[in-house]
C-alpha cells in the first residue's frame, strides 16, 4: 500500500477511508444522513459555531484538560516519562462530553427537538443526558439490559438528568443491540429526532464528525507538550472501544510520523477464545451499523458479541478510520486483557491517587508493559479518558471485596 502525503485528509466525499466507512443504511435514513452531512459541512467552517463550542468547552466542561506528568508511575515503571491527558477531569467524568456538546449544537442548528443516543458503559448516555438538560431537550437513551445491570450508578445519573432510559433486550442486550435499537427509533422518528452517536463509528459523516469534536484532546495535548517539553512526544497510547477518545488524541499527530501511535483494544479473557473485543486484532472487515470496518464475526458473517470487563470497550466493531490506519500501518493496535487492566487500575490508584475508568486502565496496562523497556527521555502521552467512579462495583466484585464490609475485615 502506498503512503499518502497526509494521513489527515480522509474521508473522501463518499465517506471512505480507503475501503472503510461509507453509508450502509436503510433508504429511510439516507436523506437524513445527507442532510446531516450538509449541515456539518456548513457548521465546520463557521467561526460562530466554534465560538459557542469553545465557550461551553471552557466554562461548562472545564477545558482545556491538564497534561499531567505522572511522576510516581514513571518512577515505578522505571523507563519512559509518562504524561496523562486528563480528560477524566471533564464535567461528567470522561471524554464523551466533547462530542455530545458538538453534536447537540449541530442538532439545535438543524432545528431538531428530540435527542436519542445509545450507551454501553453509560458514560456517553450520561454525557448526552447532560447536554440535553443544558439545552432543555427531551432525551431517550438506549442501553443494553445487561449493561443497565452492571452500570447502575450511571442509569440513575441519567434519570436524575431527566433522560428516559430504554433497556434493550434484543440480541444479547449490550452496546451493539442498543445501537440497533437507537437506529430503529431514528428510522421511525425521522422528522424531529437527532441521533447523537457516541463514538467515531456509524455511517458517514459520523466517524469524521465525532473525530473532529474529539480532536480537541490531541490539539490541546500537542500545545501542552510543546510548552512543557519543547518538543513532540515519542509515543501516544489510548484505549479503543469504538475509537473516539483514541482518534481525538491521535488525529492531530497523524502527520508527525516520528510519533509512535498505539491503540489498545480490550483483550477480555484472551484472543484464543471468543471472549474479547479486539476487532482489529481478532476480527475481519465487514459491514455493520452503517459502515465497513473490522468486526468480530463468525464465518457466516454473523456478528459476535464482544466481551470485556469494561462495558465501554465491548463493542464488536471499531470506527472505520482506525481500520484504515491499521491497514496502512500508521497506528499500531495491540490489546490488554481483563486481568491486566485490573492490575493497571490498581497501580494507578496506588501510585497516582487517580482512580481511572476501566477503559483507560487498558491503555495503562499497555503503558506498564512497554514503558520499562524505553529510555528515560522517551516522552509518552496516555489518554486518561475517564474516571473510575462508575467502575468501583465491578472492580470490587473482581477483587472479591465485599461492599457491605467496607473495612475489609473479612477479605484480604
Amino acid at each position, binding site marked *: 500500500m502506498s503512503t499518502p502525503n497526509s494521513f489527515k485528509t480522509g474521508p473522501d466525499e*463518499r465517506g471512505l477511508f480507503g475501503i472503510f466507512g*461509507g*453509508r*450502509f*443504511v*436503510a*433508504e*429511510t*435514513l*439516507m*436523506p*437524513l444522513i445527507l442532510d446531516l452531512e450538509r449541515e456539518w459541512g456548513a457548521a465546520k467552517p463557521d467561526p460562530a459555531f466554534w465560538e459557542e463550542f469553545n465557550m461551553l468547552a471552557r466554562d461548562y466542561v472545564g477545558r482545556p484538560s491538564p497534561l499531567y506528568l505522572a511522576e510516581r508511575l514513571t518512577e515505578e515503571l522505571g523507563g519512559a516519562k509518562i504524561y496523562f491527558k486528563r480528560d477524566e477531569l471533564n464535567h461528567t467524568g470522561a471524554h464523551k462530553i466533547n462530542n455530545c456538546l458538538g453534536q447537540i449544537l449541530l442538532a439545535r442548528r438543524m432545528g431538531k427537538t428530540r435527542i436519542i443516543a445509545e450507551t454501553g458503559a453509560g458514560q456517553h448516555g450520561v454525557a448526552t443526558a447532560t447536554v440535553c438538560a443544558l439545552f432543555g431537550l427531551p432525551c431517550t437513551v438506549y442501553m443494553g439490559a445487561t449493561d443497565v445491570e452492571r452500570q447502575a450508578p450511571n442509569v440513575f445519573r441519567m434519570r436524575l438528568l431527566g433522560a428516559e432510559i430504554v433497556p434493550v433486550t*434484543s*440480541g444479547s442486550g449490550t452496546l*451493539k*443491540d442498543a445501537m*440497533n435499537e437507537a*437506529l*430503529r427509533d431514528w*428510522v*421511525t*422518528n*425521522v*422528522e424531529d429526532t437527532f441521533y447523537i452517536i457516541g463514538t467515531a463509528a456509524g455511517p458517514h459523516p459520523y466517524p469524521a464528525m465525532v473525530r473532529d469534536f474529539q480532536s480537541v484532546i490531541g490539539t490541546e495535548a500537542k500545545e501542552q507538550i510543546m510548552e512543557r517539553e519543547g518538543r513532540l512526544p515519542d509515543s501516544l497510547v489510548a484505549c479503543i472501544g469504538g475509537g473516539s477518545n483514541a482518534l481525538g488524541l491521535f488525529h492531530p499527530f497523524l502527520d508527525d510520523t516520528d510519533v509512535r501511535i498505539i491503540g489498545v483494544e480490550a483483550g477480555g479473557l484472551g484472543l484464543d477464545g471468543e471472549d474479547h473485543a479486539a476487532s482489529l486484532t481478532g476480527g*475481519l472487515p*465487514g*459491514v*455493520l*451499523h*452503517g459502515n465497513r470496518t473490522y*468486526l468480530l*464475526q463468525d*464465518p*457466516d*458473517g*454473523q*456478528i459476535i458479541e464482544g466481551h470485556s470487563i469494561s462495558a465501554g470497550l465491548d463493542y464488536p466493531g471499531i470506527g472505520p478510520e482506525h481500520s484504515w490506519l491499521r491497514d496502512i500501518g500508521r497506528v499500531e493496535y495491540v490489546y490488554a486483557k481483563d486481568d491486566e487492566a485490573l492490575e493497571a487500575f490498581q497501580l494507578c490508584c496506588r501510585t497516582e491517587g487517580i482512580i481511572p475508568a476501566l477503559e483507560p486502565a487498558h491503555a495503562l496496562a499497555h503503558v506498564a508493559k512497554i514503558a520499562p523497556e524505553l529510555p528515560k527521555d522517551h516522552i509518552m502521552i496516555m489518554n486518561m479518558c475517564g474516571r473510575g467512579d462508575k467502575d468501583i462495583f465491578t472492580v470490587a466484585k473482581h477483587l472479591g471485596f465485599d461492599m457491605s464490609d467496607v473495612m475489609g475485615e473479612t477479605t484480604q
Partner: protein
Amino acid sequence: MTTRIDNKFAQLKTEGRAAFVSYIMSGDPDMDTSLAILKGLPSAGADIIELGMCFTDPMADGVAIQLAAQRALKSGQTLPKTLEMVQEFRKDDADTPLILMGYYNPIYIFGVDRFLAAAKAAGVDGLIVVDLPPEEDDELCIPANKVGMNFIRLATPTTDEARLPAVLSNTSGFVYYVSITGITGAASANQKNVEDAVARLKRFTDLPIAVGFGINTPEQVRDIGSVADASVVGSAIVRQIENNLDEAGRPKPGLVDAVLNFTKTLSQGVR
C-alpha cells in the same frame, strides 16, 4: 432480459389483479419446517416469495422479524443453507419468483461474485438488501445487474423527488415502497398516503410498485392492492410461526398448516 418477476407481473396484469407477496425468514423455526412452509406458499396464494436471510443485527426490523432471525440463527441457519432451501424449492416450482431479503454483511463475507453465482444457480430471482442505498451501488447492485439478477430498491416516505431518480436507477423487477417511516411490523400503513406515494412513484417509473411494512390483514392487502401492483406481508405471517411454537421453541404439530391457512386468508385480499 425478462425474468420470472417480469413474467409474473405481466401475467397478473392480464388477470387484472395485484400480486400478493409473502415474506418468511429462512430457517425459522428450523430448516425443515421453514422449507415445508416455503413449498406450500404458492398454493396458499403467494404470487411472489420473499425469503429472509437471517442476520444478528437486523436494524430495520421490528420485534417479530428480529425474533424470527434469532430462532433461525439458533437452529443453525446460514446463508449457504438458505441457498440450499431455494434449490429444494425450485425442484417443484419453476415459476414463482423468489427474492432474498436481508442485510449486506453475510453476503459480503460469503463473497459477492460467489454469492451471485450460487444464488443464480439455486433459482433466486431478485435481491432486497436493506442496508445498501444507491450510494453503495458498486457493492452488490451493479454486479447483480450484470448477471441478470433483479436488484429491488426500497423507496420510503423520506425519499423526496430530488432523490427518486437515484433510487430508481439501476433497479429492476419492481420498486418496493416502504409505507411508513419505521421498522417492519410496527405501525399500520395509511391508505391515502400510500395512494399518493404510489401515484408519485408512477410518474417516475414504469416498474410495478409493491407496497409493504404495516400490512397485516386481508382487508389491508385488498386496499393496498387496489392502488399498488403488489401487497407485501411479512411480520403478520412470521407471528403465526411464533404463535405455534411450544415452550422449548419447537414447532407444535400443525404449525405449517396454520401458517399456510393464515397466508391463504391474506392472499384472498387480492383475489
